[in-house]
């Protein structure tokens, strides 16, 4: 493209492997790409295709060994940085190149306040310090849409919701207005309106400073709205590259074609939906007046403060039905999910499951209950024991509830489940840290399915999956629902997916349900202003916007 003259970053023929006793795993194979100032390069691709690994290599974040850069040349601003270490590398990382990590929950240090983690960047690059740095950090948090940044700056990551942590991560990355920003799935946990706000922010930065952006996303609409150029990766290789418009309108590679046609959007979703066909009258779960108040104190001896995260939430889930929960990031969706599984005690309220209040169950009843209800966590990496292999992780429900599956059959069943979610049998012997974000999410889904539950609570369960695999997983879930009468509570920010998959939807904002109804009703005739703003926030492709 003529607009961008000299490339800022060039990656040539990059090949990365992971070594162990077994044959090496080739994660990235002969990948080349470049990005210029002010340009946005979007990397699309299958989950596990090497997107994160190839971009991490740019920042020297792959540990070698066990990682091994077999070949490749990385040039940034005319300097070869492939083997750069120590002080020169430090001056580039964070300041010239910054990265938004895919899994914001694990990538924040749990023992420091978010404020400190942001201020640190200013201080170590000598940009600002003390009060000034704090001021800047607060304004950054405000820019990424964190409410009350003055108080929240002194809180710790675990006190933030998934989407809020992701935004903290973004704030950290843009703090020094880098020349190149690598954003690895930056909006996976953000609702559409916040997502739009963040994308605007990134665009503004690009206009302001000429920042180059490498955006990894699975979301085709986001991709289209941001991309100047697109590369598509599959199985560690680049299968297609070109100007955004060309790739989207005239894909050439089979995988790209599959990708673009995989998930129907907009009204197409309304028609080709995977919603439940056999609507039943039997109520599986009834939630009444659920309320959660978080207490926290600022500092060791600080005053105790409280925050009402969930406020008087009521809903019902029927057998064989999918209840979608959408809403603002930080509106208490995950809190509701955690309470339903008795992982957090509610401040007040009731949840009747099979005629019994979950919150007053004794240990034995709880055990039976937990066999029937499973959860897919928003943070799949954190939810797996790092010492356990995938086989052990997936077979754990069988070990807990001895009567589900005889031990002899575990191995086969694990392989079966892995294949159902699009992973390979040999993955069973690997450990969580050896997977990509999307792969971990799929392992979590496989585990949830393992105990053959009646109700699954999915907290952003498919948010990191590329559309083709997303479709595969949704199909799987829909199939199970029809065959086994499973019910789902499906928390997501992704409107096409809920529209496609959910039977009824509740919309949450600031801890309260602002609207609920059947999917068609919500999408066809939204009544609450917030719902409307959600539906309107659909991004427009960049070439269309530019052309207009």
């Amino acid at each position: 493209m003529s607009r961008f003259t000299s490339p800022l970053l060039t990656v040539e023929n990059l090949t990365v492997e992971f070594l162990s006793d077994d044959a090496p795993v080739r994660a990235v194979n002969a990948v080349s790409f470049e990005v210029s100032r002010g340009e946005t390069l979007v990397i699309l691709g299958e989950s596990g295709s090497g997107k994160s690994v190839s971009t991490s290599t740019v920042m020297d974040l792959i540990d070698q060994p066990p990682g091994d850069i077999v070949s490749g040349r990385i040039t940034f601003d005319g300097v070869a940085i492939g083997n750069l270490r120590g002080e020169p590398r430090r001056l580039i990382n964070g300041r010239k190149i910054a990265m938004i990590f895919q899994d914001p929950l694990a990538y924040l240090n749990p023992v420091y306040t978010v404020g400190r983690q942001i201020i640190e960047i200013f201080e170590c690059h000598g940009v600002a310090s003390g009060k000034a740095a704090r001021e800047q950090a607060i304004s950054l948090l405000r820019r990424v849409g964190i409410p009350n940044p003055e108080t929240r700056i002194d809180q710790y990551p675990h006190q933030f919701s998934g989407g809020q942590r992701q935004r903290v991560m973004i704030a950290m990355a843009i703090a020094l207005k880098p020349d190149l920003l690598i954003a690895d799935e930056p909006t996976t946990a953000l609702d559409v309106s916040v997502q739009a706000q963040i994308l605007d922010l990134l665009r503004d930065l690009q206009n302001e400073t000429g920042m180059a952006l490498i955006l990894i996303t699975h979301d085709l609409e986001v991709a289209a709205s941001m991309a100047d150029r697109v590369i598509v990766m599959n199985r560690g290789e680049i299968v297609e590259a070109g100007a955004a418009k060309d790739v989207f309108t005239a894909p050439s590679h089979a995988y790209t074609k599959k990708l673009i046609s995989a998930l129907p959007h907009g009204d197409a979703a309304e028609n080709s939906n995977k919603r439940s066909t056999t609507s039943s009258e039997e109520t599986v779960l009834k939630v009444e007046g659920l309320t959660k108040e978080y207490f926290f104190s600022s500092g060791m001896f600080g005053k105790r403060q409280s925050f009402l995260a969930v406020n008087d939430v009521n809903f019902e889930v029927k057998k064989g039905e999918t209840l979608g929960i959408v809403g603002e990031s930080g509106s208490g969706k995950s809190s509701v999910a955690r309470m339903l599984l008795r992982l957090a005690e509610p401040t007040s309220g009731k949840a009747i499951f099979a005629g019994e209040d979950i919150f007053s169950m004794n240990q034995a009843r709880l055990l039976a209950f937990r066999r029937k209800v499973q959860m897919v966590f928003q943070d799949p990496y954190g939810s797996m024991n790092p010492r356990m292999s995938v086989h052990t992780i997936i077979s754990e429900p069988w070990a807990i509830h001895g009567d589900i599956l005889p031990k002899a059959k575990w191995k086969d069943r694990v392989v079966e489940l892995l294949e159902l979610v699009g992973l390979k049998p040999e993955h069973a012997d690997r450990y969580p840290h050896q997977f990509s974000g999307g792969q971990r999410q799929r392992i979590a889904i496989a585990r949830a399915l393992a105990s053959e539950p009646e109700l699954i609570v999915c907290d952003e369960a498919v948010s990191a999956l590329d559309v083709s695999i997303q479709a595969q997983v949704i199909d799987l879930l829909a199939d199970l629902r029809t065959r086994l009468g499973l019910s789902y509570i499906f928390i997501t920010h992704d409107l096409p997916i809920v529209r496609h998959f959910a039977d009824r939807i509740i919309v949450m904002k600031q801890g309260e349900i602002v609207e609920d109804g059947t999917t068609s009703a919500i999408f066809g005739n939204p009544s609450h202003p917030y719902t409307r703003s959600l539906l309107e926030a659909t991004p427009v492709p960049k070439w269309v916007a530019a052309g207009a």
Partner: protein
Amino acid sequence: MTVITSDIAAPPPAGKLLIMWRCLKRDKLALFAAIFLLALAIATIAGPPLIGDLAAKLGLRQRNLAPFSFQHGWVYFLGADTLGRPIIARLVVGAQNTLGIAFVAVLCSMLTGGILGLIAGYSERWYSQVIQRLADIVMSFPSLLLALIVLYTLGPSITNLVIVLACTRMPIYLRTTRAEVLELRERMFVSAAKSMGAGSFRIVLRHIAPLVLPTLLTIAALDFATVILAESSLSFLGLGIQPPDFTWGAMVANGRGYLANAWWISFWPGLVILLTTLSLNLLSSWARTFADPQQRWRLQSLRKTPR
């Protein structure tokens, strides 16, 4: 992702033991440590029947015989002790009691401390508090006094000695375990396990304990030396091992007055204690690496693709 199978043939699937052996081979120091401990084990079992009598044979006319001479036979190569008994023979014969006492004592303290620590850390019930305060009490109880009390109430015996040693070392395991559990129980995977229906027992044992164990092993490996030496300091109360039985610790203590004139009397037993501890530590740090999937590659062959 492509699995390159063409240029490197995948090794045939190996059993757990074989994998461990391969990993052990890659860490030379740990390998030496293992070999040393193995040799020690063999000497412990096979040694006493072979040279048992030599260890007790008095040689009052060759008291404190200096080492490094074959004049009196090879058993005197490392010198003789204060009663002229050959040090080599005594090292071999002393190993059994020493290692037996230390091993059992360390194991007991680690197990009880670890288990109580897991309970105290994970549970928030009243007994967690009770366990902790009890640990505080044990911690503030002078070990010598404990030894004396045990001696007077239960009488001298090796079992009681082990009880005393295990009791006094127990709090460190308990408190360390608890500290780790406090953090680990807040981790997401514990919630995940809970949500799957795992009981406290399973969570503590399967999810938390494996992550605590490496730290405990590290402490235990060093405690081995502490326990061996502490044992000898208790024997002067009459609670320790009684002559003619002896341990390395007793040998070290025996040579205490001779450091300026006959260093070898306490040096050699001190050295074997040191080597044993060192070996255990090297092995425990190897085990730590091996048990951690994120670190295990350090012990693997990592064959690179040719470029």
